[in-house]
């Protein structure tokens, strides 16, 4: 599959995932439509990202390195941000208690946003030093 097609799929599926997660987050309940949108979106996002990461092909070494390092940094950033959120909740700085569903939506959004952030950063930079 062409790289530009993969990019379009990634953009559209990411938008679907973010919209469905924001919907669930603000309504604090998960309906059939948001569930279907989320499941289809996340399958496409994960599938496209694994193609991007080229786990089983050596086609583009630079792209593979950029995607892998973005995911590694995204993982560390997400764990740190989630732990900070727990601390904020504990210290009651926010004054609002998140439900289980909201936390799950937030965790997925944080992981995806930090990945896209790092990916954009490394892509702009050109390569990993």
């Amino acid at each position: 599959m062409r790289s530009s097609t993969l990019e379009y799929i990634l953009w559209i599926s990411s938008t679907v995932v973010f919209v469905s997660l924001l919907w669930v987050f603000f309504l604090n309940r998960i309906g059939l439509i948001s569930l279907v949108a989320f499941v289809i979106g996340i399958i496409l996002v994960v599938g496209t990202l694994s193609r991007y990461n080229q786990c089983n092909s050596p086609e583009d070494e630079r792209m593979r390195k950029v995607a892998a390092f973005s995911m590694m940094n995204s993982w560390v950033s997400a764990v740190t941000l989630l732990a900070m959120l727990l601390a904020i909740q504990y210290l009651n700085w926010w004054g609002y208690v998140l439900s289980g569903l909201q936390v799950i939506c937030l965790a997925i959004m944080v992981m995806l946003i930090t990945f896209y952030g790092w990916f954009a950063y490394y892509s702009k930079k050109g390569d990993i030093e």
Partner: protein
Amino acid sequence: MEGNNQTKKAENTNTAWLYKLSMFLGAAALIIDSLVMVWTGTFDDYIFVGLLLGLMCMILSFWQYIGASPETRDERMLRVSTYAITLSWFCTVMAIGFAAILAYNMHVQYNGVQAMGFALLVGLATMLGWLAYYNNKGDLDLPD
């Protein structure tokens, strides 16, 4: 110059075990914390302190342990860790997504603390699991 580099490398090898110990102790503290959070659904003072210390130990020694720092660069370790964390990222997103699906119609009920504990637990456990697997294997066997 060559001698200086070798001395520095030897010093780094001597302290490598310290980073490794610090990272694994930090990860163990975080895993125990997240297990307690999932089990009890509460977040008390002990968990808060454990989480802070665990996170500090893990994050601070993480870059040294995986060899990302220029002084302690180890290409094999860097490759293995990057790949392990990449796979862990996928596992975590899929596991949390599955937890969201389980919440449909409230088939499974959990509070925010349990969900957060679950996310941390899956992220850390899959990362350590893949790291141990690839470390044991020796190196990645990606196609040339």
